């Protein structure tokens, strides 16, 4: 399941909902990763652009990888502005055993950072500034150079 929300995520509500969706599915391990906006570099918050068609196919590919290990993943992300100390990202793995869950959440979150078609902007004094220095070129970039 992939959810996009306008603005910040209601973390407690999402974790509660996901846990209850799967609590009878016989998964022994549930590991969410929650990303929250840190107060740094004088920002007021962050803002996100999301390109849904490719995000969905990227996510579907990971869901298939999870299924092969008997696991499932869920993900929620914000669109638009998210202010300091609010959360913009939750990814979660459910699996029968802990090792698969611990390894999968790490691989998933890292590939999310490197590949998911989402762009981040710093919000500073009403400006929206592309976070170029913290962004990563997707593997295979530069073919039009």
């Amino acid at each position: 399941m992939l959810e996009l929300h306008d603005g910040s995520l209601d973390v407690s509500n999402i974790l509660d909902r996901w846990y209850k969706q799967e609590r009878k599915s016989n998964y022994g391990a549930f590991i969410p990763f929650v990303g929250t906006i840190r107060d740094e570099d004088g920002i007021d918050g962050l803002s996100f652009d999301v390109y849904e068609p490719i995000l969905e196919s990227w996510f579907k590919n990971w869901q298939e990888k999870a299924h092969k290990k008997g696991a499932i993943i869920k993900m929620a992300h914000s669109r638009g502005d998210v202010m300091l100390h609010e959360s913009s990202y939750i990814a979660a793995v459910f699996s029968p055993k802990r090792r698969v869950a611990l390894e999968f959440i790490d691989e998933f979150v890292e590939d999310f950072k490197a590949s998911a078609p989402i762009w981040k902007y710093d919000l500073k004094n009403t400006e929206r500034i592309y976070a170029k220095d913290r962004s990563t070129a997707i593997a295979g970039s530069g073919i039009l150079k």
Partner: protein
Amino acid sequence: MVRVEFLGPINKEPLELNISNLNELATILQGDEKMNQWLENSAVAVNDMMVSSRDTALKNGDKVSLLPPVCGG
């Protein structure tokens, strides 16, 4: 016609071009000075599938997307 979209921070209006492969698109975009900073670090999708070769053929109605460096989360 092929529609070319510039995602995220590239901040450029879509183009409608009469091209038959990505090589022709590369030539056109290399002539746009504002695009230089993006060509080297952007990935390319055709009809929302990532592509890895500039020889990728294009046909009428295709959509090409340029994806600059990402940072979700």
